């Protein structure tokens, strides 16, 4: 019994809105009810799938150019007819037009469509109109920027250029401008006339030199990334919670100081100085997430914050020292050199450390071990390495230095180029020196994750017999003395299994069982 067709129209239309347009159209042949539902359907998406599927690359059909043009015209006709039907329909939920074209005459066709469309009170509008001719742009009809019903606007590949009469987007909540040409004047007007806006994204745009936002009490999230000519960013938005900027290393004046509610700040490839950073950071008492990547002018960072929960410092290649006092910090990610590092973060749960390329000599290892020791209290620590070789600590050093991560419970090594990596038992040997009493050890790469789970016997007193691993100086009992059982997963090669089996049996003095390294499988 078909009870689904009895459901209210909006529900059936909601189903249709999630299907490709052509399939939606096909449903009109199912029954009279479905035909009725389709005819009143308020979502139109003329996007890649709509156009490409029908007149681009069918390898099984050899169509002549006139044939292709005929099909294209058919599609355009259909689109135009549909828009005419909807012209007086109240509230089209969503309209998308994404198309690229050579023929400059088509521009007026799209102007006309947009005209019809705006008369139908669309809510979500996505326009991506790309001209496939060098340095030519599709000029967006000004009426789009005065559409009173639009709540979500995404524009790509077109040009917003004066003169525009009346910019007013009273319902706009989310604005996204991608690869668009927009002049300063227009942006200024745009921003001043969308009082309800909550989310703004400006990426890859040209023409804009100055991104200035004042007032806008509802604005919560702003992304400004890779805009080619941007020279100035000025934000005076009291309720802003998240700001992300990516600058392609170009100098750009950035002022965010008035945004006191900021919780998330991400700066990438930004030409900011130590002074800028310290002045600004103190303005954000509520900051919880901070990410600084590829900020090459930073040399010395001092952070003191009660709220900071997550910190990322990656590839700020000229950093020489870092001082962090963050009692709420629970997540830390670092990619850089073994620089002097001071860390107060008792709540740290997970750390991710990637040492950048460097000359690997004794001095480097000493610094690296010193650096790692600052993260001893992290529950989970991930080490990232290209081949894993820089994580194999030389034996001479193991005798004279203290294992840095003796409190870490879960240690993971991520290898980027597993085919060039050293043998697994070499890695395990070194990792177990670095962290002598872990609960789990992971070695992850593109080929999967090798897992080692360690089960220890509770020893009541320290074994005093020497085991040549320098473990007496460490306040915990090293694995060689108390490891009872090992559970291994995903170690697949025979030679690997053999070597690991030998390694564990040789070194773990009270070992009883190893699961998962059997030679027969």
């Amino acid at each position, binding site marked *: *019994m*078909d*009870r*689904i*067709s009895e*459901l*209210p129209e909006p*529900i059936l239309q*909601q*189903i249709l809105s*999630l*299907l*490709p347009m*052509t*399939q939606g*159209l*096909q*449903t*009109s*042949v*199912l*029954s*009279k009810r*479905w*035909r009725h539902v389709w005819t009143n359907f308020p979502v139109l998406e003329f996007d890649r799938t709509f156009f490409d599927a*029908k007149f681009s690359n069918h390898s099984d059909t050899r169509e002549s150019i006139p044939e292709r043009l005929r*099909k294209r015209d*058919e*599609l355009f006709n*259909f689109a135009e007819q549909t828009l005419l039907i909807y012209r007086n329909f109240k509230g089209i939920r969503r309209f998308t037009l994404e198309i690229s074209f050579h023929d400059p005459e088509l521009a007026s066709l799209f102007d006309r469509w947009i005209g019809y469309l705006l008369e139908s009170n669309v809510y979500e509008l996505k326009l991506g109109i790309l001209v496939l001719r060098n340095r030519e742009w599709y000029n967006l009809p000004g009426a789009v920027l005065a559409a009173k019903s639009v709540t979500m606007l995404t524009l790509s590949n077109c040009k917003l250029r004066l003169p525009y009469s009346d910019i007013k987007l009273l319902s706009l909540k989310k604005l996204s401008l991608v690869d668009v040409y927009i002049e300063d004047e227009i942006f200024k007007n745009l921003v001043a006339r969308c009082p309800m806006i909550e989310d703004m994204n400006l990426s890859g745009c040209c023409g804009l030199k100055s991104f200035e936002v004042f007032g806008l009490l509802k604005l*919560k999230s702003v992304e400004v990334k890779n805009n080619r000519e941007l020279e100035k960013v000025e934000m005076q938005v009291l309720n802003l*919670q*998240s700001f992300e900027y990516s600058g392609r290393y170009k100098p750009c004046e950035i002022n965010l100081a008035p945004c006191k509610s900021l*919780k*998330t700040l991400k700066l990438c490839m930004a030409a900011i100085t130590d002074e800028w950073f310290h002045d600004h950071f103190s303005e954000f008492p509520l900051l*919880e*997430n901070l990410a600084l990547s590829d900020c090459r002018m930073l040399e010395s960072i001092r952070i003191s914050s009660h709220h900071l*929960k*997550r910190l990322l410092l990656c590839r700020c290649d000229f950093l020489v020292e870092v001082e962090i006092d963050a009692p709420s910090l629970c*997540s830390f990610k670092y990619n850089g050199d073994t620089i002097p590092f001071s860390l107060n973060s008792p709540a740290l749960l997970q750390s991710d450390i990637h040492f950048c390329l460097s000359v690997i000599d004794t001095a480097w290892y000493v610094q690296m071990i010193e650096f790692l020791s600052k993260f001893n209290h992290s529950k989970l620590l991930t080490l990232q390495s290209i081949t894993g070789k820089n994580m194999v600590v030389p034996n001479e050093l193991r005798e004279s230095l203290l294992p840095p991560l003796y409190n870490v419970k879960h240690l993971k090594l991520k290898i980027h180029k597993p085919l060039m990596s050293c043998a697994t038992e070499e890695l395990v040997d070194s990792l177990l020196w670095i962290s002598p009493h872990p609960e789990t050890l992971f070695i992850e790469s593109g080929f999967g994750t090798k897992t080692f789970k360690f089960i220890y016997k509770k020893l009541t007193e320290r074994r005093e017999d020497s085991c040549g691993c320098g473990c007496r100086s460490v306040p915990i009992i090293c694995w060689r003395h108390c490891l009872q059982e090992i559970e291994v997963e995903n170690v697949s090669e025979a030679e690997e299994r053999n070597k690991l089996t030998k390694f564990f049996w040789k070194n773990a003095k009270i070992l009883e069982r190893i699961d998962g390294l059997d030679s027969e499988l």
Partner: protein
Amino acid sequence: MADDGVNTKVEAVSKATTETIELRTEDGGVFDVDKPVAMEFLILKSFYEDEGRVFDKTSIRLPNVKQLELSKVIEYCTRALEFGAKSAAAAGDKDAERMVRQEREGFEAEFVDELSNEMLKELILAVNFLDIKEMLDFLIRSVANRIRNRSVAYVRQFFDIENDFTPQEEDQIHQENAWAFEGVDAD
């Protein structure tokens, strides 16, 4: 499948002591549902807000809903409330928001995987009756996923839709929109 006359009381409790409401399905199932979860059913909410809190444990009969469906609905709504709370706690932190979103997506994928086509349709009808917007959106997405890019014949069979067009009418529709029906016969 419950037997008639056998009451299977199911406690749907997530926290310690919360007020519960008793819901009875048309096939004899009895459920004690946490009030916050039950208030997600807008059809119940209006009842409570009109009458005020009259009795501590009022028992409500749901004529269009069966046991199997209601237990699934309660499962989903309980988790949805939890995710909602987690999301609110993570507000402003995009990474944490993403994690909650992923966790939710994982749960929803598993939830829907276990549903047969029949069950999915029954749930839509039940949730439409109970008026639970969030879950309805989710079920609709799931149905769309199952019929996307399938042939007309498949969709017809999926929903069990009776064709009430005359052959001439059907032909006309095909002709008017020929390009949309190209290469569509195979599934």
